[in-house]
């Protein structure tokens, strides 16, 4: 069965520090992977997506993610976080046809000013 695991429910980092949010997926076929961010009282916004090709994908606001088939992972990274990056981050797998997506539980990122 397909699944997405975000092992860290909460991550706290200081402004200017580097960041990695972890995502592991389970799927036997070719995964289509996304990272979304949700700011308070707003809808989810797409940060980046991976379909194929270069395993390192660039997203908005300096975020990038690296796909690893051998590790079944799609970790999100940022070199230097800003306090405005505080939000909930969702790793999402689209692995079946007919438009279904599978969400991770989300990681609450808190950036200390």
């Amino acid at each position, binding site marked *: 069965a397909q699944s997405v695991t975000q092992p860290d429910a909460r991550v706290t980092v200081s402004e200017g520090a580097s960041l990695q949010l972890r995502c592991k997926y389970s799927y036997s076929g070719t995964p*289509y992977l996304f990272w979304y961010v949700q700011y308070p*009282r707003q*809808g989810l916004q797409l940060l980046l997506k991976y379909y194929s090709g270069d395993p390192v994908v660039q997203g908005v606001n300096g975020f990038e993610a690296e796909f690893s088939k051998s590790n079944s992972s799609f970790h999100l990274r940022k070199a230097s976080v800003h306090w405005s990056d505080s939000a909930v981050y969702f790793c999402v797998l689209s692995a079946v046809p*007919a*438009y*279904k*997506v599978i*969400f991770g539980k*989300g990681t609450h990122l808190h950036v200390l000013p």
Partner: protein
Amino acid sequence: GPKVLQIPSHQIIDMGQMVTLNCDPVSNHLYFYWYKQILGQQMEFLVNFYNGKVMEKSKLFKDQFSVERPDGSYFTLKIQPTALEDSAVYFCASSLRGGYAEQFFGPGTRLTVL
């Protein structure tokens, strides 16, 4: 960027009543979705809708649930009658294409069933 709106942001109703959640999708989008998120749990797919029809639904999409988008107006999720376990945040999304296309999400409607 394109925005999806949801009305209302919060709805409180008594168990057994009917409720309609409204979604104003991105104007040129053709595919529409509802997701349910119970507090502290994962967001889960409910249903998707295209060309006036339900394309796929999950086991969470009970018989009491229905969706429609009459004449290009709001995309609605109706629950009749409601049950206590329907309390959750419901997210609407829309996309221009189906398959693996990017979905644009609304801010959610928090439904509380008493």
